[in-house]
């Protein structure tokens, strides 16, 4: 039993020792763990302190520095001295990233601010610019208006005066028959016509219409009217173009445009070369062509000219430049206003430049309604009645009636013409009574002119009676010639060529001649 007890006691002792060892080990373990925990807590406390310091530094030094610094300063300011205690912790990484993030945020805000400021500035500048432009435009408008008005006033004045001068010359050359007076008047006239061309060009540029009006006119006379307004017109060669008649309202415009083109052609061709005018009749238009043998217009200038013609370069009167080239601009304006076209091409058959006035059919009228100026005594017979029967012609006729009235007017004031009576009577008399050619030239001459013009042609100029007077006039002349011869009595003039005519006119007397023509 005792053994049992001893054995039990030994087992218990062994168990007790074992338990003691176990507990001692366990206690050791717990102590070590507590040690570890304290160390960890200490480390964390240190780290916390360090983090506090670091964040303080960040807040007081680094961020203001980054915020203050320019966009380029992110580098040095971004280096945040992280305490050694925090090395290797995620916090350290985060803290290190802060300055960069702040710098980026600051930069971003700055950029946005800058953009906003720029936008505001641009807006303000825009407003200022718009205001300035508006004001500039207004000033410009005003100055163009002023310039236009000045040019218009000036040009119109010159146009009116030189037109009046032209009329005065027209009367003058009818009134004065002396060679000297005629030569002087014609010279004055040529200058006045050129002035008229220039001045009415400026008046058109300044926005006015042409002031002079003409009846429907043949192209022949339009070309010749244009020739009268330029220097060197003797070099212009043109065929007869009586078959085409331009409507009255477009006549002055076509004359002006053509004068400009002819002037250009003459100016740019050698002094001895001719300028050729020709006519081409198309289906829808008539083409009046001006060819010069001068220098071919170069491409640049042709381009400029076509721009002018198309209206692109036809800027206003204040933009003509220091050496204004008004001619083509005026031609282009006129063409647009009056419904025709002007074209320039080069080279032409003479290696020069070709200018063309394209007259659409609506500007062309029936030849019957041409100018009142009698085409011829013999020729006017057949077409005239037809023309008068036609309705549109009647309209022209009334216009014609005014035109010739003008023609007669200058003659009227002359003292001699009024008393003159029947045509046939006074005519043979002066020559008959003084058969020698030694009649007092001045008085007789003027007397004769006037006497012949007033009685006989008076009806002739009325559109009503061209047929009657046509044949009559040569008859009167024949009577005069016969009377002259009879006065010389029995003289047998030698020239054979004139003989036949003379005898027939002298003996069977004026009546025969008149009858012949009456048919």
């Amino acid at each position, binding site marked *: 039993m005792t053994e049992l007890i001893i054995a039990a006691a030994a087992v218990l002792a062994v168990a007790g020792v074992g338990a003691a060892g176990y507990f001692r080990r366990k206690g050791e373990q717990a102590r070590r763990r507590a040690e570890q925990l304290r160390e960890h807590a200490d480390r964390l406390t240190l780290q916390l302190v360090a983090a506090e310091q670091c964040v303080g530094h960040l807040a007081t030094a680094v961020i203001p520095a980054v915020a203050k610094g320019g966009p380029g300063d992110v580098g040095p300011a971004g280096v945040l001295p992280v305490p050694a205690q925090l090395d290797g912790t995620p916090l350290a990484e985060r803290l290190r990233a802060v300055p960069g993030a702040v710098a980026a945020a600051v930069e971003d805000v700055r950029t946005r601010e800058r953009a906003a400021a720029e936008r505001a500035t641009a807006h303000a500048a825009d407003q200022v610019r718009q205001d300035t432009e508006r004001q500039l435009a207004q000033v410009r408008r005003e100055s163009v208006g002023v310039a236009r008005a000045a040019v218009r006033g000036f040009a119109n004045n010159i*146009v*009116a*005066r030189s*037109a009046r001068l*032209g*009329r005065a010359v*027209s009367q003058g*050359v009818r009134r*004065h028959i002396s*060679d000297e007076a005629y030569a002087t008047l*014609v010279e004055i*006239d*040529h200058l006045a*016509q050129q002035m008229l061309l220039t001045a009415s060009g400026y008046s058109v540029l300044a926005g006015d219409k042409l*002031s002079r*009006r*003409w009846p429907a006119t043949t192209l*022949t*006379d339009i070309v*010749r*009217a244009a020739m009268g307004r330029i220097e060197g*017109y003797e070099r212009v060669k043109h065929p*007869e173009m009586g078959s085409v008649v331009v409507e009255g309202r477009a006549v002055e415009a076509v004359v002006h445009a053509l004068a400009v083109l002819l002037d250009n052609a003459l100016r740019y061709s050698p002094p001895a070369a001719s300028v050729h005018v020709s006519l081409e009749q198309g289906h829808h238009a008539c083409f009046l062509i001006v060819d010069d043998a001068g220098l071919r217009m170069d491409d640049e200038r042709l381009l400029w000219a076509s721009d002018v013609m198309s209206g692109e370069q036809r800027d206003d009167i204040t933009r003509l430049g220091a050496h204004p080239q008004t001619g083509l601009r005026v031609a282009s304006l006129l063409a647009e206003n009056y419904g025709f076209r002007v074209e320039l091409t080069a080279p032409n058959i003479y290696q020069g430049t070709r200018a063309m006035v394209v007259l659409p059919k609506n500007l062309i009228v029936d030849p019957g309604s041409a*100018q009142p100026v*009698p085409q*011829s*005594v*013999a*020729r006017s017979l057949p077409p005239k009645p037809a023309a008068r029967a036609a309705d549109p012609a009647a309209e022209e006729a009334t216009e014609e009636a*005014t035109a*010739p009235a*003008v*023609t007669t*007017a200058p003659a009227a004031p002359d003292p001699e013409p009024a008393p003159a009576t029947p045509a046939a009577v006074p005519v043979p008399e002066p020559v008959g009574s003084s058969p020698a050619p030694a*009649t007092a*030239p001045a008085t*007789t*001459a*003027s007397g*004769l*002119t006037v006497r*012949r*013009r007033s009685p006989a*042609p008076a009806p*002739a100029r009325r559109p009503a009676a061209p047929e009657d007077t*046509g044949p009559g006039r*040569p008859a*009167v*002349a024949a009577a*005069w*010639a*016969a009377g002259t011869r009879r006065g010389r009595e029995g*003289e047998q*003039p*030698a*020239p054979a*060529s004139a003989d036949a*005519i003379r005898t027939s006119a002298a003996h069977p007397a004026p009546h025969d001649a008149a009858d*012949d*023509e009456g048919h």
Partner: protein
Amino acid sequence: MSGPRRDPDMVRPYVRTQGRIRAREDVRLESVVIAATGPTDTLGPDARRVMRLFAGADGGLAVADIAAALELPPSTVRILVSSLMDSGHLSSPVAAIDDQPDFDLLQEVLRGLRSLV
């Protein structure tokens, strides 16, 4: 614009005469001229108009008459006629007078004849 009247000369006189401003001395307003036959194609428009006046007339025309018929200034017509005479289209029947004995001589002869009768 400045006046109701229209200029009668749309074609100016110097253009009509192709720049010539002097007539021949012997072409006066009262001179009678006669037409020669011949082509007139080469003539200018006004010269042709002058020639057409003769087309129907079987005799001479005075320069003043031509001026009146064509409603042209007399001096212009004198020049036109001068040019036509230079080119041979017109001639002056009176020109023969230059070759003829003068008036006094003729009167002497007449008186002589009468005394004979």
